[in-house]
């Protein structure tokens, strides 16, 4: 399952629905990304720009690659765009496998690829205006470790 949406979603409900859809799994790993506001550098919102058609295509590819590579039973990616306030859930990935190692590897792979290949761009809303979040070189490094 892939979902690119401007709507809020309920991470717990997604986790339960994903788990309930499969009976033969032993291990489920989820990652949830949450809007952060640091006390020493607060933000009032995070604004995510998106190229929705490309996001749908890329997330579907990333998901399929992860399923094949780690023999996952299933994987899901939910990613929001629009204006989100601190504490709101930005995105979630879910990876289901017979054993824990594949579930953890699958979820980390999904995250590492999503960080560099999913067309979302974050802008932080602060007291002094908007500022673009810079891409981190370590995100490219994290993705590169899966190269083979």
């Amino acid at each position, binding site marked *: 399952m892939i979902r690119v949406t401007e709507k809020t979603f309920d991470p717990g409900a997604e986790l339960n629905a994903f788990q309930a859809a499969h009976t033969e799994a032993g291990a489920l790993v989820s990652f949830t*990304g949450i809007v952060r506001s640091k006390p020493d550098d607060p933000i009032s919102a995070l604004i*995510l*720009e998106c*190229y929705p*058609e*490309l996001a*749908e*295509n*890329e997330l579907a590819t990333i998901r399929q690659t992860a399923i094949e590579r780690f023999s996952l039973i299933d994987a899901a990616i939910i*990613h929001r765009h629009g204006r989100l306030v601190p504490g709101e859930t*930005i*995105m979630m990935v879910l990876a289901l496998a017979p054993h824990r190692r594949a579930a953890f590897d699958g979820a980390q792979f999904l*995250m590492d690829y*999503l*960080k*560099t*290949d*999913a*067309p*979302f*761009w*974050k*802008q932080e809303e602060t007291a002094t205006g908007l500022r*673009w*979040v*810079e*891409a981190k070189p370590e*995100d490219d490094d994290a993705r590169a470790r899966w190269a083979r």
Partner: protein
Amino acid sequence: MKVLYFAWLRERLNRASDEVSPPPEVVTLADLVAWLRAQDEVLDHAMTNPAIFKLSRDARIVPWDTPIDGAREIAILPPMTGG
């Protein structure tokens, strides 16, 4: 053919897209970017470090040497910061 710009590139250009008709010598996406930069000083300056950008063709990320052929929609994508 439509060319889309995103995030700070869109902001610097002050527009989200262009409708363009490149000449026949523009064969690949790399050619298209070079041709667009030659016509727009702001775009040229914004893309001084071209290696950081990804390109998409009809909503699929593709290598820079991909032919534009009958592409409907090309996008120039600054480094992504999702997740």
